[in-house]
Every structure is written in structure tokens, then in C-alpha cells.
């Protein structure tokens, strides 16, 4: 057995209290209690982890220090010999990033008749979309409405969300589900075709659609298949390392770096769509992450240097239930759907210490409090953790339910000798999502003309905290939107003379404030060599 004696002793208490804990309906916190909890325990409120941005459009605002190091990094193109007259790719629409948003954008741009290509740092589908497990929200049940969805999104985001973006998210939500279903995405349905939907943290209606706990993978592989069917060129293992502007300051392409050979090529485009995703691999505040290998905030850095503004770059989402044990999958995601299906959060003493479906920021802060000031965490060898009492699921819904609805979770633990149907699992918050990002208008365009942004790289849709299932929805709604808008706009664009002058000027501004020891920027990949 891989569990320690302390774990086994605590597990006995969890088992003894299980029947009572299943019956318990824990109280939800009041707005005031939540505010106080967040201020004291949520990592976003730790002042020492943030620094002020010193240059560019968001100067004076705070950012995580690891992100700021990239904003103050040295543009990679400055140390390369690049001939902008040597245009290798010439397209209407360049999509940077091969995740769910990028693939949706490319499909729609292609459908609108644009000459579109995708450049992606790893492979198409190597993205957080692939790893989204629990589901996708949309208000399509009779007891639900876009207005009800709107209220949940705004409340969850602490009313900081951009209302016009939320309006689009909730209004286009059902259409997004239908679009995916018509592409062949296999949503969980009952015999009569009714979508099987559940709650997520902070939802007031059961509107979480799923494909078992491979929801994102099912969406991503279908979108990828469609991109390939349409013959859209996918230039993989190729990172954008700088945007190219034209002499009017409009986005006009990107400098592309082959990640394997180091070869650099110029892509000219009438419109550019940044769909570069999140930042988990920046490991803000030393947190482990549930994100894919390439999640290093590259898009934020490129757009910012080109003159776009960031929004809520200081708010990150720590998913309450990251794997805390065993070590080999430390930080991996345990989907919120586990709690949607009835499993509760239990401390070392076997006590259910909170309602399992509070919003993610509140749940994460509550777990951190339980493991710190309350002193009721379980020692994992790498820190403290709480239990997620997964055997509750089959007890509530009948044997076989967990295996059918959560096959990925079951398999993930089984590979390391743990059967989560029989024993509870140990969890602790993990860096999961970039709530903020690049500011856009409702047409998907950033502050830079002809530069569109979609997916996790966008800021403002989710305010300061995103709800479960609204990210898969946002990449589809705003990915499609960006593709349609960019294709339309590209028809009227004449690209001027290509330039990287903005990167040089940005570097000059950094030198003026005396920045030293610059790291190469953007980061592209984390460095795990000779670590562990």
C-alpha cells in the first residue's frame, strides 16, 4: 500500500463519517464570509507575489512577478537576423495556437472563404482544451435562460466581467453546443436525446454538458479532425516569437520559430488571431499546475509589446482539487465534476468543512485555510492536503456510476495503484486558469487593429473568477467569433510595409528604466531539465 500510516488513520475517520457526511447538506457561505476568506487565503491576495508593471499600456498595475519577468524580457527577435522581405507564408488569416479556440477560429475563417493557416508551438490539440474534463455550460434547458446564466457568470466573476462579452457568451452558448453536436461531438444524452447536465461550482441551474470526463478531449479531437478535413494548413512545432506590424501599426503577421531546427520564417497576414492559451507552466507562486506543457503566456507578451492592453492579468484561478498525492501526478486536475456528482471535501478529522460547490476561488481559499490556520490537513510528504471523498459517488448513485461518468479520473489513479471508488483521494489547489488576459471588444479585436484574440488569452469574459464549464464555452463562442470577424475584416485589408520596430522601441523603453539580466521572451516552454 502506498499510503502512509497517518493517511490510513485519517482515512478511517473519513470512512466512519461517510454516511453522515453524505446526508449532510452543508451551508453555503454568505457574501461577507466569502469576501473575508478570499482576502485572507486566496493566492491572488498575496501582495509579495505581485510586482508593478513598469512599461507599456498597463504600467502601474500589478502582475504576477513571473509574468512581469516576461513582459520585461528581451524580445527574441532582436538577436536574430530576420529579413521581413522574405515572406514565406502569405495568408489572409494567421491563427496562432492550435487549441480549441484556434481550431474553432480556423474552421470559421475557412468556412467564410479566407485563406487561413494555423501555427502552433507543439501539435494541434496540445492545449488546455484537451485536458478540460468536467464539461461545458450553456443555458438550453427549459428551467434555464441566458439571463440566468448571465447572473451566475457575473456573480462568480465578482461583477468585474465585461457585460458585453458575457452577453455574447451566454447568448451564443446554446448555438455553440449545437455547432459542436453537428460536427459530431458526442455529448452525454439520455435515450430521448435530453442532454445529461449537472451543476458546477456557483451555477444556479444544472447546465453542465459533458462527454464523460473527457469533455475537452472529445471537443478538441473533433475540431482537430475538422481542421484536417478542410485541409487547413497546420504548421506545428512552430512558435510565434513576435507579432509583425505594418507601417500603420496594424497587425500584419508574425515571426515563426521552428522549435526543433531553430529555423525562422516570416508569415504575412491581413489579420492575426492570437489563440495562445494560458499560463499554468509559469508556476506562479510556485504552484503546481493542471495545464499542458506549452501554457506559458506567450500571447499576452506578444500582444502587449505590439500595443494591446491587458485586463485582470493579476487574477489566476487555482483549481480547488488538484492531485496532492501520489507524487507522480502532483498538480494534475481532479475534475469539479467529481463534486458535481456528490463527492464532498473532508478534512483530516473526517469533517465536511464546506459546501462542495462553492465557486472555485472560494473553494480553493477554504482548502488552503483548512490546511493552514485550521490545522486539519493531511501530510502528503510535499505539504498538506484534504480528502475528496470519492466513494460517496457510487454510494449515492449506485455501483458503476463513477466508472461510467469519470473514466479518466479512475484510470489516472489506477495507474498508480489507487482505486478512487474505494478510497478517498487527497487534493490541494493547483494553478489552473488565467482569468485575465488581453482586452478585446465584442468583435474579438484587441487594441491593435487587425489583431484578434480568442480563448484563455482573452481577459474580461470571466471577471476575476471563472466558473467551471465557461472556459470550454468561451473558446468555442469567441473562437468562432474571431474566425468570422477576422475573415470578414481581411477582405478590406491591404498590408503595408512589414516592421518589427515596435519590439525595438519596447526594448528601448525597458533599457530606459534600467532593466537588467533580461530573460529571453516569450518563454515558449518551461525548463524542467535536471529538476525534480
Amino acid at each position: 500500500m502506498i499510503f502512509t500510516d497517518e493517511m490510513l488513520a485519517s482515512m478511517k475517520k473519513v470512512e466512519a463519517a461517510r454516511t453522515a457526511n453524505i446526508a449532510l447538506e452543508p451551508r453555503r457561505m454568505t457574501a461577507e464570509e466569502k469576501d473575508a476568506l478570499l482576502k485572507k487565503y486566496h493566492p491572488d491576495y498575496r501582495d509579495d507575489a505581485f510586482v508593478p508593471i513598469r512599461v507599456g499600456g498597463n504600467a502601474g498595475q500589478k502582475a504576477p512577478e513571473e509574468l512581469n519577468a516576461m513582459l520585461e524580457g528581451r524580445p527574441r527577435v532582436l538577436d536574430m537576423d530576420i529579413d521581413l522581405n522574405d515572406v514565406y507564408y502569405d495568408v489572409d488569416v494567421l491563427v496562432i495556437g492550435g487549441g480549441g479556440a484556434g481550431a474553432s477560429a480556423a474552421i470559421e475563417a475557412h468556412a467564410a472563404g479566407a485563406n487561413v493557416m494555423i501555427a502552433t508551438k507543439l501539435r494541434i490539440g496540445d492545449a488546455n482544451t484537451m485536458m478540460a474534463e468536467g464539461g461545458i455550460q450553456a443555458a438550453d434547458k427549459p428551467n434555464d435562460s441566458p439571463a440566468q446564466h448571465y447572473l451566475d457568470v457575473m456573480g462568480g466573476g465578482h461583477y468585474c466581467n465585461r457585460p458585453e462579452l458575457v452577453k455574447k457568451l451566454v447568448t451564443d452558448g446554446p448555438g455553440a453546443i449545437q455547432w459542436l453536436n453537428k460536427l459530431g461531438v458526442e455529448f452525454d444524452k439520455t435515450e430521448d436525446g435530453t442532454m445529461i447536465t449537472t451543476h458546477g461550482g456557483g451555477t444556479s441551474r444544472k447546465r453542465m454538458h459533458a462527454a464523460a470526463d473527457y469533455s475537452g478531449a472529445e471537443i478538441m479531437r473533433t475540431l482537430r479532425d475538422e481542421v484536417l478535413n478542410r485541409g487547413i494548413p497546420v504548421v506545428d512545432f512552430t512558435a510565434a516569437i513576435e507579432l509583425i506590424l505594418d507601417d500603420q501599426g496594424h497587425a500584419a503577421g508574425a515571426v515563426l520559430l521552428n522549435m526543433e531546427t531553430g529555423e525562422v520564417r516570416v508569415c504575412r497576414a491581413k489579420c492575426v488571431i492570437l489563440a495562445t492559451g494560458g499560463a499554468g507552466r509559469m508556476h506562479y507562486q510556485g504552484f503546481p499546475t493542471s495545464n499542458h506543457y506549452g501554457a506559458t503566456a506567450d500571447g499576452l507578451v506578444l500582444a502587449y509589446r505590439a500595443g494591446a492592453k491587458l485586463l485582470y492579468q493579476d487574477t489566476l484561478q487555482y483549481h480547488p482539487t488538484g492531485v496532492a498525492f501520489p507524487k507522480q501526478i502532483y498538480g494534475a486536475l481532479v475534475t469539479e465534476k467529481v463534486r458535481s456528482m456528490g463527492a464532498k471535501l473532508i478534512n483530516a478529522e473526517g469533517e465536511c468543512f464546506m459546501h462542495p460547490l462553492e465557486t472555485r476561488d472560494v473553494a480553493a481559499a477554504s482548502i488552503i485555510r483548512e490546511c493552514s490556520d485550521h490545522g486539519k490537513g493531511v501530510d502528503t510528504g510535499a505539504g498538506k492536503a484534504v480528502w475528496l471523498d470519492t466513494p460517496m459517488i457510487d454510494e449515492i448513485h449506485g455501483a458503476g456510476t463513477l466508472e461510467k461518468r469519470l473514466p479518466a479520473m479512475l484510470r489516472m489513479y489506477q495507474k498508480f495503484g489507487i482505486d478512487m471508488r474505494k478510497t478517498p483521494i487527497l487534493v490541494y489547489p493547483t494553478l489552473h486558469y488565467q482569468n485575465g488576459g488581453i482586452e478585446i471588444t465584442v468583435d474579438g479585436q484587441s487594441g491593435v487593429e487587425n489583431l484578434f484574440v480568442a480563448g484563455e488569452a482573452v481577459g474580461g469574459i470571466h471577471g476575476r473568477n471563472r466558473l467551471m464549464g465557461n472556459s470550454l464555452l468561451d473558446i468555442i463562442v469567441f473562437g468562432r467569433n474571431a474566425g468570422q470577424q477576422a475573415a470578414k475584416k481581411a477582405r478590406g485589408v491591404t498590408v503595408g510595409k512589414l516592421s518589427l520596430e515596435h519590439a525595438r522601441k519596447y526594448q528601448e523603453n525597458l533599457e530606459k528604466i534600467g532593466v537588467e539580466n533580461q530573460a529571453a521572451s516569450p518563454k515558449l516552454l518551461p525548463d524542467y531539465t535536471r529538476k525534480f
Partner: protein
Amino acid sequence: MADMVNVFLFGKKYEVPSDLTIMEAMEYAGYKLVRGCGCRNGFCGACATVYRIKGDRELKACLACSTRVENDMYVATLPFFPLIKEGYDIEKIPTDESIMMQLYPEIYSCVGCNACTNVCPQGLNVMQYIAYAQRGDYKKCAELSFDCVMCGICSSRCPAGISHPQVAMLARRINGKYIAPESKHLTERVKEIEDGLCADALEAIMAKPVEELQELYNHRDIEK
């Protein structure tokens, strides 16, 4: 600190802690991965890997991100495998077995060796889902193949040259689009939205000042 074990990465010996995954062991040894590393958690299929334990005749397969190292493990990664992916128009294809005959005729050359099933790191019954695809039973093929991460290890072992993950992908799309029942509540809601029937309620809630919105949120009824 965990015990150290010997692993042989592409035949070269490295000493690494025994509690690492194969992927972590490569990084511990000094590799900076570009290929063969994606989600790092068993969903993307980027890190297909084959290995043998010294003295053991059997060739095993796994995902490097989800498998612990063992002593005397000889490891080779398979970061790319040339699967056949045929293009098609999902709006126009036939939904019976004729589409498989047309796009992936090699599935009918399956010799029943079961090598695909034996190596699947997801533990899927790969040969059986190919049998369902042969018969045009896409619902069953979709069900059995649903957990596929498209790593391609099955295809690397197939004497008939079948690209199992792509066959299953086609079956799942046909099932999701044409065979699974329509969600009428979804169709109706999309129409209501297109007809502008949801706009007024949304505009009304958007017009409220934040204090009122907070009040509404804090006291909203939550579906049981």
C-alpha cells in the same frame, strides 16, 4: 529521497529516482523535451512509449507521463507515428459501412492477432472496436473507443497497417452527429435565441446597477 534505479533511454544508461515517471526521468537525465510531451497527464497521446524490462521477453507500451520508471527499463519514445488520416465532408458522407470500405478498406484485412488491444495504454478493446467498424456498427465502435487518446501505439503494432485511432474518430463523429438522438430542448432554445425571444430578459438584467445584481445573485434560487 527515493531509491535510485537504472533506466536505459534509447539504450543509454541513466540513474534516476525510482519515484519519477518516465517523462520526468528523461528530464532528470537532462533532456529538454519538445516532441513527445503534451498535456503531461494522460489525455493527449503525445508521449507514446515502448519499453522492455531487462530479462523480460514482452514488449510493453505506455504513456511516458503516466508510468513510473522501473529498474533496468529499456525505453524508446514514439513521438510521432504516420497514421493514415483520410479527409471527408461530415455533412455529405454515407453513414453505413460503405464509408469505411471507401476510406479505410485496410480494416477488412485485420488478421485478428489482437496486438492492438494488448498494447493499448488506455486498456481499450481495440480489435473489437475495429470489428464493429467493419460492420458499420458505429454506435458500439464509438462506445468502445471513446477513451482513445490517439497515441497510435496500436497502429505501430498492426500487421494489416490499420490506423485504428482515425477509424474510431470517424465512427465517433458519425455517431455523435447522425446516430445519437437529437436534443430537442437544444434545438428549441437555439431557435428562441435566433428569434430574439431571450433578448429582453437579458437586456433587463444587464441594465441593473451592481448592487441590484448582487442582491439578485445572493438570493437566487439554486436548482436541487
